């Protein structure tokens, strides 16, 4: 049973003690960000800030929706103790069964409607999150809704946006993102204003799916329905035909300029570093703000993992990669994107390895965008989810000259948020990719050329292993991995 709205999710977190309510006044200017960041780094509960300096009673801020795999499990209605592998399997099962949204006439997000000259972005308690940020970031744990004017593809994406002034928002969705592609393909050439809506505080699974690198023309709302196992209720915006989740806490509507810009950033981004700002951000004028009574502003104090971004993207990026590889008939077992790798590292398990298979994987995963820049391919005797095993395979099977392949990535396929690139590479969307083939070459003779792995599982007779396992606790052992 899906959560009807974000507030039901908070109630669920209350029941499992996965949220802290801070009732004393906190400052939107850095204090909220500092508490949120510290909570991630301590792997503490999520935080609901109930009293915000300079803002009316009832205006609240929430941080840390999906900052742990536990909270992802709760958001999916699963046992909070569900192991990561189990979350991956359930996410995969649900994402493969999309459910179309339903359109409703009204919804809680319309309880307050501010339009036109009455719009004042400073009426919302937008936090100034990290010292050194370029401004107050209104779009962190929020997602943007845009539409292709020709195909009517409705895209949800999670991109950073900050307040420029009371009516203007400027952000930096990557040039190669779906929003960037749509903007430069369909609106900029015609000098058309591009309608956009920014959604805060929807069902957390809507936010999660917005982080997923789904294929072009895929409506994320369908996949959010699949994840929720119930359709998402959508309602029309006040000033455009865009559709947004009706139970959202806050919706900000506007139009992106095709020929106007403003300075944006810098911002402490998802890889865990603050990188340079942009002279020419994506600028939009706000035409309406709608919100629930006593709205809850959802945010993320991004930084070193784990946090909502690295945890959510661990699933969404991995399963998107897996779908692509399966579509190309590559014999994979699993794909794991470890949160501490911030989607820049992926581990791909294969049934049968070798350079050719590894290179095929690299080509498929970097064809349109090389968001990942290090790919490790492991045999099926290695559990991709177990980094101890992955490092062992990397150390022992990856040949320093014949197992590592590096190549340049030409613009605009590079990931402009890759800290190890130069600022010039980032700005031009150039980069590089490294492939680590940690598999045995298939041409090696398994009888006399392939070393035999020395592990409990492989090196001992079945009957003996069963005896050892049966007596394990009798021997005095207590702890198992």
């Amino acid at each position: 049973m899906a959560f009807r709205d974000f507030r039901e999710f908070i109630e669920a977190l209350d029941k499992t003690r996965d949220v802290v309510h801070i009732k004393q006044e906190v400052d939107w200017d850095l204090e909220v960000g500092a508490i949120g960041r510290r909570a991630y780094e301590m792997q503490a509960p999520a935080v609901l800030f109930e009293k915000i300096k300079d803002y009316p009673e009832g205006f609240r801020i929430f941080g840390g929706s999906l900052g742990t795999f536990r909270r992802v499990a709760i958001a999916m209605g699963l046992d909070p103790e569900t192991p990561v592998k189990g979350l991956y399997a359930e996410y995969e099962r649900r994402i493969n069964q999309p459910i179309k949204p339903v359109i409703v006439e009204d919804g809680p997000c319309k309880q307050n409607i501010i339009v036109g000259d009455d719009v004042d972005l400073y009426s919302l308690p937008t936090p100034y999150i990290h010292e050194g940020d370029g401004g107050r970031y209104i779009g962190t744990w929020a997602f943007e809704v845009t539409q292709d004017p020709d195909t009517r593809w409705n895209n949800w994406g999670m991109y950073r946006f900050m307040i420029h002034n009371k009516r203007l928002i400027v952000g930096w969705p990557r040039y190669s993102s779906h929003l960037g592609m749509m903007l430069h393909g369909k609106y900029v050439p015609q000098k058309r204003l591009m309608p956009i809506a920014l959604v805060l505080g929807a069902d957390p699974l809507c936010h999660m799916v917005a982080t997923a690198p789904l294929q072009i023309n895929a409506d994320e709302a369908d996949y959010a329905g699949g994840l929720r196992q119930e359709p998402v209720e959508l309602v029309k915006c006040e000033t455009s035909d865009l559709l947004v989740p009706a139970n959202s806490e806050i919706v900000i509507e506007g139009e992106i300029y095709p020929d106007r810009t403003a300075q944006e950033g810098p911002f402490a981004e998802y890889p865990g570093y603050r990188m340079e700002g942009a002279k020419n951000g994506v600028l939009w004028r706000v035409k309406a703000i709608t919100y629930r009574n006593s709205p809850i502003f959802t945010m993320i104090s991004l930084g070193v993992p784990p946090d909502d971004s690295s945890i959510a993207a661990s699933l969404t990026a991995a399963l998107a990669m897996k779908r692509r590889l399966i579509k190309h008939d590559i014999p994979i077992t699993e794909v794991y994107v470890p949160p501490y790798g911030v989607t820049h590292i992926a581990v791909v398990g294969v049934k049968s390895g070798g350079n050719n298979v590894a290179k095929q994987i690299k080509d498929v995963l970097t064809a349109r965008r090389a968001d990942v820049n290090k790919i490790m391919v492991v045999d099926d005797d290695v559990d991709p989810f177990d980094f101890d095993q992955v490092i062992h395979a990397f150390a022992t099977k990856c040949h320093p000259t014949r197992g590592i392949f590096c190549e340049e990535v030409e613009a605009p396929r590079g990931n402009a948020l890759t800290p190890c690139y130069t600022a010039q590479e980032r700005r031009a969307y150039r980069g590089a990719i490294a492939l680590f083939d940690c598999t045995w070459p298939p041409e090696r003779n398994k009888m006399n050329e392939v070393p035999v792995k020395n592990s409990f599982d492989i090196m001992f007779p079945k009957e003996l292993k069963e005896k050892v396992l049966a007596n394990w606790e009798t021997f005095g052992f207590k702890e198992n991995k």
Partner: protein
Amino acid sequence: MKKEYLTFIPDIKDLIENQEVKLTIKDLTPGPRKYDARIVKAILSSSPTRLPDGDVLWVRSWTGVLYPQPWAIKIIGGAGEIEVGLPHGETLRAGK
């Protein structure tokens, strides 16, 4: 009481002293409108004593690192709230 502003610059050499320049500044006045951005025409000085009637301008690098000494800024007038230009303009230029 001097007002305080903040600006971000790709290179400290981009801040030209003692002549009219155009730059984006953020208002650091405490309150709910702190960090409001605007584009202004202004005279700058790296030494506040050389611009005694100026306000305080804190300077951060393009990655947000604060230069320890503030500059002085004398705002001559507004230069609009936004710039003419393409979104992702610098990426498009870098691509060429």
